[in-house]
């Protein structure tokens, strides 16, 4: 085990897979000479040359489309899109091409295309550079949606993404690139659809992904001081979703809080809540709590930005509600 940064873990994954498979290549804005805005691709140009590490013009629809075409024709492209917000320019290529090709060819054609991008709030980059858009991709059958929260998960999942054959929306978080974590030495691969229990507990299940896993863990520490043992589950991939892990945890704790940075309306949290109510209704001792971003574009002002997405205290309060603790306090008065 070594302690490295999220961005270094991503670079290791790309580097190892490029060394392993000559069909893997990466294109993106400023990723070659400059090494990418988040330094994920630093050093790869020197190692693998300009054929496999290419800068592109600012043309997201073209880049994504070219990536999809290359994948259909047997390549293993990684297309880096600077912000998930910019991926909206390439939505036709993602939604109508990449996601559909396997079915439209009766299962004969595959699209091993990986789009790496990042989302979320972080330091006042305002409404067009702060969104959490996983729900858009989640709603399109045919796409895999991956949202790693730690360096180890980032590495293991990206390596797996480059070995499987379906289009992957690999959604990193801008706040996480400089965070550190332990990453196993040697070959480290994480299959899609396998969640991870980031903290074990028996009283309430907190489900979170990407940066919100860290908010959930902070909340769990706070709850522990109050004598409440929260279990924190990170599904790691939203599609496919580790439903069994979630249902098993709910059966144990009987209470659930789902935390997402994306806005509340039409979110992945709502869908997970609907799965839980349908498949574990009689296990529930309280309504499923959702802690989510406000249904509003993210503002620039840093105080307002913070107010627009879930904070630790919001998660703690939701967990206490689900345990009927605050209601109990009122009744005792």
């Amino acid at each position, binding site marked *: 085990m070594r302690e490295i940064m999220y961005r270094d873990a991503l670079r290791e994954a790309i580097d190892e897979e490029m060394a392993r498979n000559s069909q893997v290549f990466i294109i993106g804005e400023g990723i070659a000479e400059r090494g990418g805005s988040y330094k994920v691709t630093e050093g790869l140009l020197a190692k693998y040359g300009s054929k496999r590490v290419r800068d592109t013009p600012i043309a997201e629809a073209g880049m994504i489309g070219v990536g999809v075409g290359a994948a259909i024709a047997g390549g293993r492209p990684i297309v880096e899109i600077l912000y998930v917000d910019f991926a909206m320019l390439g939505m036709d290529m993602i939604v109508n091409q990449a996601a559909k090709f396997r079915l439209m060819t009766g299962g004969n054609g595959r699209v091993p295309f990986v789009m790496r991008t990042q989302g979320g709030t972080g330091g006042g980059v305002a409404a067009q550079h702060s969104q959490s858009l996983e729900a858009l991709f989640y709603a399109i059958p045919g796409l895999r949606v991956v949202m790693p929260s730690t360096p180890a998960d980032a590495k293991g999942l990206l390596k797996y993404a480059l070995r499987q054959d379906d289009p992957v929306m690999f959604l990193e978080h801008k706040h996480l690139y400089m965070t550190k974590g332990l990453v196993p030495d040697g070959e480290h691969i994480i299959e899609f659809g396998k969640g991870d229990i980031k903290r074990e507990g028996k009283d309430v299940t907190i489900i979170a992904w990407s940066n919100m896993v860290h908010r959930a863990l902070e909340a769990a520490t706070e709850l522990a001081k109050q004598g409440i043992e929260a279990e924190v589950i990170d599904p790691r991939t939203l599609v496919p979703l580790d439903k069994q892990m979630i249902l098993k945890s709910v*059966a144990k704790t009987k209470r659930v809080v789902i935390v997402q940075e994306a806005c509340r309306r039409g979110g992945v949290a709502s869908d997970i809540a609907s799965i839980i109510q349908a498949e574990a*209704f*009689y296990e*529930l*001792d*309280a309504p499923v709590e959702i802690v989510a971003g406000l249904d509003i574009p993210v503002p620039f002002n840093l105080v307002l930005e913070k107010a627009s997405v879930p904070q630790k205290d919001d998660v703690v309060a939701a967990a206490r509600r689900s345990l*009927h603790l605050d*209601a*109990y306090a009122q*009744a005792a008065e």
Partner: protein
Amino acid sequence: MSDAILCPQVGQDLTEAKVVALHVKLGDTVKKGMIVAEVESEKATFEVEAFAAGVVIELPYQVGDTATVLEPLVVLGSDADAKPAAKKQAEALTKNGTGAKQHDVVAPARAAVNGQGRSSPLARRTAQNSGLEIDRIAGTGPDGAVVLRDVEALVAKSGKSAVASATGLNVKSLKDGKGTPVVFIHGFGAEIAAWRQIAMAIGLPNTLLAIDLPGHGASPDAAAPGFQCIVDAVESTLRSMGTEFHLVGHSLGAAIAIALSVQNGLTIKSLTLFAPAGLGTIVDGDFVAGFLAAKSEAALSAQMKKLVNDPADLPASMIKATQAAREAGPVAERQTKIAAGLFEGSTQLFSVRAELAKYPGPCRIVLGQRDGIISSSETNKKLSPGIAVHLLENAGHLPFLEEQGLSARLIAESVRSSG
């Protein structure tokens, strides 16, 4: 032979078109490629070309009529009574590619919501299983809703069983332990108590649980007659407790264990089956009838002795408990109804042979050679070679009582062999 020229498909969503011209009349001879009519859709006028040849024998529409798309516009043939064939062809064409069955709607088999007061789903379920009325429990949740802790507090006070199960089947712990639980499922007419003795003889660290079948012991009545309904009830009870189990079953309970061993969503790590039903067709119908009809302890004792080879092996407490249960409630009536769904005379109405053949895990079958209720030789026929069969020379239908030490060891071996 007849043929039809259909009102052409002139749009993806259009189902009708107006006939604006008919270039043929009855009796005309039509050649392939002729323009026989013109129809008008929302968008434009289309000429209708003949893709077949023949004599016009029917014109279902006149100029000005609205024709249905892909229904015959001109019927061709040589004799007048060919129309049904043409119509049939048109139907076949329009139905092309829509063969998908409608999804079956499965009504949820859940009890109606209890009372007017608010309560959590888990609190309601736990209360029901513990025989408590949710309406009478004081709630401490939001706006006085009854939540789990309220039910648990009352259960603790009243000393009722707090083992929760979704379908209300009674589950008791025979021994607390760790790891994958071993669940015991009794046979027809029995109850959890049947396992008490052997449970004490089993040297395993695992939790040992026993379940009362619907209509037996402390469980509610079966929701409907039939084997599958009982399996479903046991399945959902198990699901409410976890996903991984070892199963030990006797007779009917063994058949249920086999049925559960290949259910999706449950992982059955091992099977130990005593005198399993469902692998043959014969059952002693006289015993079933006599056992159910017995009113006195003496009659019950005479019937139950048929279960064992040596009557001394049948504990008197078992007969007494059965009699006491019958006096306390409508047990015999319930079980008579259940029996009607399982047996007809001396025939078993259910079979789990196919399921047993599919089960991949370790499986032991213990049979009494002197079993008078089912036929051990019939059961023992054509079993997969992977199944260990122990045929006990001096045992009847209750080998786990008659050869308790050996049976306990075999259960422990099955559990351990699953790794």
